[in-house]
């Protein structure tokens, strides 16, 4: 089945545009009777950082959680429409959600390390997916994940201490390392810096920029500066609708939509 995506991949390689990693078409989300997203069409480009912005309660987290089906854990939540990962419908009954979440990892707003040792926090994912065959290999995965998350130097001497004993910023980078350890293709981040101080935030932002080389990243943020600093593309949500989507430079200098302009310049939100 030579799908649209395959064609698109070809096209994009010709035009030097990044290909599309995830695609959302007419996504409606309901929490019980209440509709939280209205026909959102949004594509996530590969190996780039996409920022989702918009006022509180507009559905950014909801959309993000559709991308790895975390909404399945909420009983009353219903998702309609079509979301694909590399052209495959992720809501297809044949899709194993466990496998999907291994490919699309997630970092939460509040750092949530398990009450286990730092080592065990990272080893958790590789273990449940059987990614490593030996202890040595697991050690290696742990180290490289911690290195990629730019926290190795800080924790290498205390791998057996509880992850909950780290500072907030360290915990968040630990959670990023934990997500990296299963080698996902996409990492979803829901306001990953909202609980962090400016220095820790800077570290995480730097990290996101480095991770872009290997991963596709979608980040929800309330900080316009952060969106401008780390993302290549930005999508603006309002009241459950996608208002506008485009290259970050353009969105921040010359948005098409009045709403976007007002939001970015802080006139509402």
């Amino acid at each position, binding site marked *: 089945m030579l799908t649209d995506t395959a064609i698109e991949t070809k096209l994009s390689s010709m035009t030097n545009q990044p290909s599309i990693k995830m695609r959302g078409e007419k996504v409606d989300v309901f929490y019980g009777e209440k509709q939280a997203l209205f026909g959102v069409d949004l594509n996530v480009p590969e190996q780039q950082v996409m920022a989702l912005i918009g006022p509180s309660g507009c559905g950014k987290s909801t959309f993000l959680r559709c991308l790895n089906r*975390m909404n399945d854990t909420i009983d009353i939540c219903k998702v309609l429409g079509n979301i694909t990962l590399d052209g495959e419908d992720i809501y297809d009954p044949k899709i194993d959600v466990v496998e999907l*979440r291994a490919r699309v990892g997630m970092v*939460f707003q509040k750092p949530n390390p398990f*009450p286990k040792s730092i080592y065990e926090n990272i080893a*958790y994912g590789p273990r449940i997916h059987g990614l490593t065959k030996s202890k040595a290999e697991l050690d290696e995965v742990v180290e490289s994940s911690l290195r990629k998350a730019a926290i190795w130097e800080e924790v290498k001497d205390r791998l057996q201490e509880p992850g909950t004993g780290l500072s907030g910023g360290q915990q968040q980078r630990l959670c990023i390392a934990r997500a990296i350890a299963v080698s996902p293709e996409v990492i979803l981040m829901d306001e990953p810096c909202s609980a962090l101080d400016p220095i820790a935030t800077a570290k995480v932002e730097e990290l996101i920029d480095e991770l872009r080389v290997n991963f596709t990243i979608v980040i929800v943020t309330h900080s316009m500066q952060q969106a401008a600093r780390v993302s290549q593309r930005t999508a603006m949500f309002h009241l459950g609708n996608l208002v506008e989507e485009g290259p970050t430079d353009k969105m921040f200098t010359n948005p098409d939509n009045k709403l976007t302009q007002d939001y970015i310049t802080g006139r509402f939100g």
Partner: protein
Amino acid sequence: MVSYLLIILLVASIASAMAGLHRARRQRDLATIKVHSRPIYHALNAAIWTGVPAFVFLLLWTLGEASIQDMLVLSSFPGADQLSGPERDLLISEIRQVQAGNLFTEPSPEILAAVDHLKSLELIFNWAMVAVAASLASIGAFFGYRIIQDRYQARYSVERSVTWFMIFSSIVAIITTLGIVSSLVYEAYQFFTKVPFAEFFFGTRWEPQIAIRADQVAGQGAFGMLPVLFGTMVISALAMAVAVPTGIFSAIYLTEYADQRFRSVVKPLLEILAGIPTIVYGFFAVLTVAPAVRSLGLSLGIDAAPNSALAAGGVMGVMLIPFISSLSDDAFAAVPRAMRDGSYALGATKGETIRKVLLPAALPGIIGGVLLALSRAIGETMIVVMAAGLIAKMTLNPFDSVTTVTVQIVTLLIGDSEFDNPKTLAAFALGLVLFTITLGLNLIALQTVRKYREKY
């Protein structure tokens, strides 16, 4: 007599509260400055002044009255000063019996004289009590009424009284506990003066049926507690084997899998189990479960007694399920949602999340529940009295009958017994052992539960 006095006292307190309220209102209306306390506090204060001193007096008086009367009667009884402690107790109770009109034989003239003495004493005591209580109440009422002034801090005074009342209540609880424990320790000490320490703690024979009177035929008596303790452990182990897995799995199902409707029906049902009186479990065990267990054992070709450890332990296990399930349920529910999300987002299945994240995080809470259930199992009496057996045996066969510490305490204290007899005193020693074990378990349980609370 005392109850009438109490009612009168209550009425007097209410009356002085009314009077106080009236006076306080009038003062407030006349006052040129802002009054310190609202009239209701002045009223309460007046009531406290009227009622409490007299009430405390009555309480102490009724507690101490009898022993003072006894002392006075005995001091004038001819030859009483040569009697030993227990003999004096006997004499006094005889006098009191005669006074109450319970005659078994024709009392001697000395006793009759003592009864007369006692009667006159009681009369004096009663009138003295009334007089003192009445004067305390009226002095209190007078004072409480007079003290009402616009700047008098009645609110502080009432609050202080309430604080004292709370302190008093907690002291009552502490003193009762201390009293029970110290009498346990004292009687156990008496026991150890008659039976050596080592025999009790390390002996393997438990045959407490010794002669009470010299002319009775009975065994020599052996007080090795090991077989009894062993029985307790076997039954508790069986009970825990039923209760722990059932409780934990039902908690996991209820918190993680069941939908809201199922949960809202089943959880209260489970808690009803905890409300069934143990005697009901007891006859369920002895009438229904024990015969079934016996026929099962016989059909398996095992030597099965009509009363079995399995029947008692199994039913006790059912009784303990709600303890474990509801504490584990709380422990699971207390694990933050973020932990679950973190695990699911890494692609963990529900089973993996439960096993690797929820169970370890909830473990201290679960252990707390298990330990509390265990101390219940060890102290449980009714079910085992009815369904376990009486003969102390060291056996691991669950179809055999065993006996437990609690059962032995009951049998030791039932029927005629003397309080200086090792057979009776053994009950206190066993009680002390039981108390120590359950106290230890409870302390550990509370400790783990507390540690767990600090975690998140």
